[in-house]
């Protein structure tokens, strides 16, 4: 509570998502008593963790005025390759995880280079990359391969002193990202480059390098999300990452980021993810029909985005 209050004060422009999240949590707690169960709350966090990691990565991308639709498939690739290589072996977990992070970063590097050199709109470029990676995954395997390890499963599902491991990971990532976005020189340059690339360049910033780094971050975080996802699924399912990119995008924008760049917030993005996860969890607990759930999810996204927009234009 205190943390978010402090956030609210510091960054009024990202205020929109917090009241909504509190509202959502409050409504869930009242309407679905099972929601309040601490074990359920831990579940919600586990369920949100993969998307949370991806959304935090995407915040950097949006801050720089770019977009990355390939993250779902990067995560998917890291699920499939990671499981295939680890195949249940705890000893291999860490080196393979490191390898996946490097691979994700490398794909991000390619994205960044292509955006810088080809003059293709990043949305189209990364959409093309999504398709390419999907093809690569299917060429590698058309069915679930390999197994994750105990260690990975612990990372994704376990807890330390009652705190879910993914929560610890998320908080750590969030802290680093938030500081990087708001307090580091790189973060400032990122926002400048996203806010007005031409002017940032004239101010002496190396906009191309910034874009490159942003895609590397995005690729690496997507791979990290994939590693978590591998822990949750236990196997390398080829379609595991499908659609994550859009959910991440929605969460980040709900969290106050502008698709036009120059504005993004890691805590906001995470709040957006949590809102979606709470929503899905609470509706499940309330026994709302799956079809109605989908409808409600759409409505909430619309309502949230419209509300935050109205609030912003009033400010």
């Amino acid at each position, binding site marked *: 509570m205190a943390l978010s209050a402090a956030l609210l004060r510091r960054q009024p422009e990202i205020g929109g998502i917090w009241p909504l999240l509190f509202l959502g949590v409050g409504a869930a707690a009242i309407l679905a008593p099972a929601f309040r169960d601490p074990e359920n709350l831990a579940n919600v966090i586990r369920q949100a963790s993969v998307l949370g990691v991806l959304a935090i990565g995407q915040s950097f991308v949006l801050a720089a005025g770019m977009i990355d639709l390939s993250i779902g498939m990067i995560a998917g690739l890291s699920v499939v390759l990671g499981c295939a290589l680890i195949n249940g072996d705890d000893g291999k977990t860490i080196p393979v995880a490191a390898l996946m992070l490097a691979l994700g970063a490398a794909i991000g590097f390619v994205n960044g280079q292509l955006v810088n050199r080809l003059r293709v709109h990043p949305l189209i470029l990364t959409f093309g990359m999504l398709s390419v990676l999907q093809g690569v995954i299917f060429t590698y395997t058309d069915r679930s391969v390999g197994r994750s390890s105990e260690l990975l499963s612990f990372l994704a599902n376990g807890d330390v002193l009652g705190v879910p491991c993914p929560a610890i990971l998320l908080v750590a990532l969030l802290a680093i990202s938030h500081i990087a976005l708001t307090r580091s*020189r790189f973060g400032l340059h990122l926002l400048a480059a996203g806010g007005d690339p031409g002017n940032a360049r004239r101010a*002496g910033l190396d906009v191309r390098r910034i874009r490159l780094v942003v895609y590397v971050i995005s690729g690496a975080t997507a791979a990290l999300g994939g590693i978590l996802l591998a822990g949750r699924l236990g196997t390398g399912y080829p379609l595991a990452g499908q659609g994550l990119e859009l959910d991440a995008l929605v969460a980040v924008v709900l969290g106050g980021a502008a698709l036009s760049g120059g504005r993004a917030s890691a805590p906001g993005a995470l709040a957006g993810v949590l809102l979606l996860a709470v929503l899905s969890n609470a509706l499940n607990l309330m026994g709302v029909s799956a079809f109605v759930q989908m409808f409600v999810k759409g409505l909430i996204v619309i309502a949230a985005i419209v509300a935050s927009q109205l609030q912003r234009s009033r400010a």
Partner: protein
Amino acid sequence: MIETAGLTKRYPGVTALSDVNLAAHAGEIHALVGANGAGKSTLMNVLSGVTRPTAGALRLDGREVSFETPGAAQAAGVATVFQELSLVPQLSVARNLFLGREEVGRFGLVDVAAMERDAAEILSRHALDIDPAATVASLSVARQQMLEIARALTQDARILILDEPTAVLSLTEQNALFEIMRRLSAEGLLILYVSHRLDEVLAIADRVSVMRDGQLVATRPAAGLEMDELVTLMIGRRGAASGRAAPSARPAPRYEIGYETARGREELSIGRGEILGLAGLVGAGRTTFARALAGVPTHGAKVTVRREGRPLRLGSPRQAMRAGIVYLTEDRKRDGIFADLDIVENAVASSLDRFARFGLRNPGRERASATRILESLKLVAGRLDMAVARLSGGNQQKVVLARALLTEPELLIVDEPTRGVDVGAKAEIHDLLHTLAARGVTILVISSEIDEVLALAHRVVVMADWRFVASAPATGMDEASILLAASGGSRQGEPT
């Protein structure tokens, strides 16, 4: 200390610079003048690393350099205030001020507090009353301009490039700027100064270089240079100075305007065919008033208008335009031109309906009307299907004017109509406004150049702190009295 040798820059279809050899020394204020599109900004962009030349060399202290990026130029000691504002609107004042050179504290983190503290100090040193934590987007254009200058000044540069820094500044700020410039040049800085305000140039510069059609036609010491001579060099012929508006009997009020703000309710009336000049210092609220008058939904400002006693509905610019009220923006790039679209498309944007039948366009009539009016405005352009972004500032202004005129306005509001416009075009625009007024169009002119207001207007109203504080026939006012009213805020003169 800086020299260019055979500098040439070609764009498809235009040679913006051709074989330019410029030499400027440390400690001098070197002015660069020329008509719109002469190539001044292009030259400055090359010097500051934004644009790379097609041919030619650049020497700094005798050593050949080539700036691949603006960052490289800054590292070599070239600080630039660009003609187009180049701040990042979403970021705070302090962050903009130190962009790329942030102060880093513990753990390599940016020390925001220290930056804001230092920013406050720098701002107050330049007598700028701006909150370092405010976002740049919330500042007026003039303040943004001052902020840019302040930013360039903090860069410890050896060369300072100012590309039309005074275009949006009012007199006090200009004077403050000139003060700073003199001090810096005395400290050994080279200042390259681009401006259309020739009197200013002659007053402050040590030497003046004149550009025409991409060529450097002359470099002269400012002392002893006559204005006429300068104009002749610039445009290749003698310029015609625009005359003052003929004093005329004040016409009966046609528009009665009520203006409500947090400061209270103000009234203003304008007659048919009258040119009313609105003067004031930066931030006096002239633009806000004008936009509200033209139907732009505005926070904290409410305008009611009666034309010949009958109230007008002004809920949107569209409604205002239907009622004959048209506003020409002070910020062409942001909300004036449709940069990617061509000249005709820009010119007819507001009057498509007039030429259309049943919602179907009539491109022939559109083009014919646009051509006619653009010719009468003496537009200089290669082709009419050229993207408007490629025109020089003055010609862009003419296109935007053409758009307004095609709607056949009754009340035309022009905000800084000659900002960034060269002397030739400026006189043409002035003449045009006079002609329109003579035809019965009511005109409201906002300008930060008091000279311009005095030259154009029949009557001058001074604004300060969102209120109309003075009103008098132009003949009864001079620079001093306007400035006094604008800064004092005391009410004087006849009722507005």
